[in-house]
Each structure stands twice: as C-alpha cells, then as structure tokens.
C-alpha cells in the first residue's frame, strides 16, 4: 500500500517490507518458541502442573501468529478488506472451537470403550 499517489495497478502498489523487519520477526519467533518451551518446563517440571500452562502457551502462540500474519503475510500493510476476510475465517474457526470446548467441559467423566 504505502504510496497511493501512483495509480499503477497490480504489484506496483505493494508495500516493500524491509529485510530487517523480517529478520527481527524471525528472531522474535525463535525467542518466543524458546519461551514457550521454557514456560512448559517451569509449569511441568518445577511447579508440577499449573492451570496457567495451557493459557500461557496459547497466549504466546497467538502473539506469534499475529507476527506471522502482520509481517510474513503482509496483513499489516494490506487493505482492510483482506483483514476482514481473514477475521471472518478466524471468527468461524473460533465459533467451531467454542462448541467443542463447551462439549468437552460439560462432559461427565467416563471410561472409553476403545
């Protein structure tokens, strides 16, 4: 996006994301992956289980996903329409998950007949 003054259609209007941003995002993703593993170690091996383990892991994952979406997929510099399209997909995915989670958490404990 960026410059709207040249009205050439197609690829010309695309924003060129600087290389440094990609390298920084890559390092951030690596650091956050290590952080996820670190937290897992803390919660499971030091604290021997915690209710925070899953929320923390998925919070970090959500942050990493946001980084990939914004920079690697260029959504940060893209048209709002494309953001809306992605958001729609994501909302429906979340809706599906919500019903699955409701199902799991309202179940009576039972033994599988596998």
């Amino acid at each position: 996006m960026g410059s709207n003054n040249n009205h050439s259609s197609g690829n010309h209007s695309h924003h060129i994301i600087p290389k440094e941003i990609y390298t920084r995002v890559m390092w951030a993703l690596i650091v956050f992956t290590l952080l996820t593993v670190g937290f897992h170690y803390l919660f499971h091996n030091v604290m021997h289980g915690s209710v925070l383990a899953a929320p923390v892991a998925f919070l970090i994952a959500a942050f990493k996903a946001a980084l990939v979406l914004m920079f690697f997929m260029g959504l940060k510099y893209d048209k709002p329409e494309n953001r809306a399209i992605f958001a729609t997909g994501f909302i429906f995915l979340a809706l599906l998950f919500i019903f699955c989670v409701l199902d799991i958490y309202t179940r009576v404990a039972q033994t599988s007949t596998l």
Partner: protein
Amino acid sequence: MAMSIHHLQKNEKSEAVTKLWITVVCGLVFMGIKAFEYYTKFEHGLLPGRLLDVAHAHAQHANLGMYYGFYFCMTGLHGLHVMIGMGLIVWLAIRAKRGDFGADYFTPVEGVGIFWHIVDLIWIFLFPLLYLVG
C-alpha cells in the same frame, strides 16, 4: 519465503531464487525431523486408536490411542501441506530462475507465500497443543 518476495519487489532475481531454495531446505529439515519422530513413535507402539500397543508403549490407559489419533491426523495433514508447499516453492524457484518473476510480476510467489505462511501459522498452534499441553 517472505524475503524472496522482498527481493523480487526490488527486482533482485537471483537473491529471490536463493531464498526460495533456502525455504525448500527448511521444509526438508522439518519433514526430516517429523520422519524421525514418526519412526520412534512407531517403534514404541505409539499408534492411533485401537492400534495403540498398550503393553509395549507402557500406556496407563488405552485412551492414549485417542491422543495419538489426533496427533497423527493433525501432524500428518500439516506435513502433507508442508510437502505441497515445498512442491510449489520448487516450481516457483524454477520459474524464478528462468526470470519469469520480477518487480512487476510476482503474484504466484505471493500466493504460494500466503499458503506457506498459513501452514506455518497452523504449526504455531499445533506445537503447544500436541507437544506441550496436557
């Protein structure tokens, strides 16, 4: 992948080709790790559903087979998409080497890039889900 688009936008064609091949190599490394992982799982009798070798796997409960059902379906489907992505990137690398793409035409590279990164995005969630939680 993203960097190859950056290079194409600046018309740096040979750098773009190199970055595409680096992406393929990364994909290969990932699949190699997965192959090794699957192999050890099979060796320990950690198989999905009814196939789970409860005695060999020292499983406390046959329900572990259900976990491995999810595990193999999710990592398997993800792996399949990684392989599709790698195939597409090889195709892009060959076309980029031929000089098909440049600052004024790189739509296929961008499209495959979006696919590759959504597969990556899914792995970001699968990793804590399957390897860390629970």
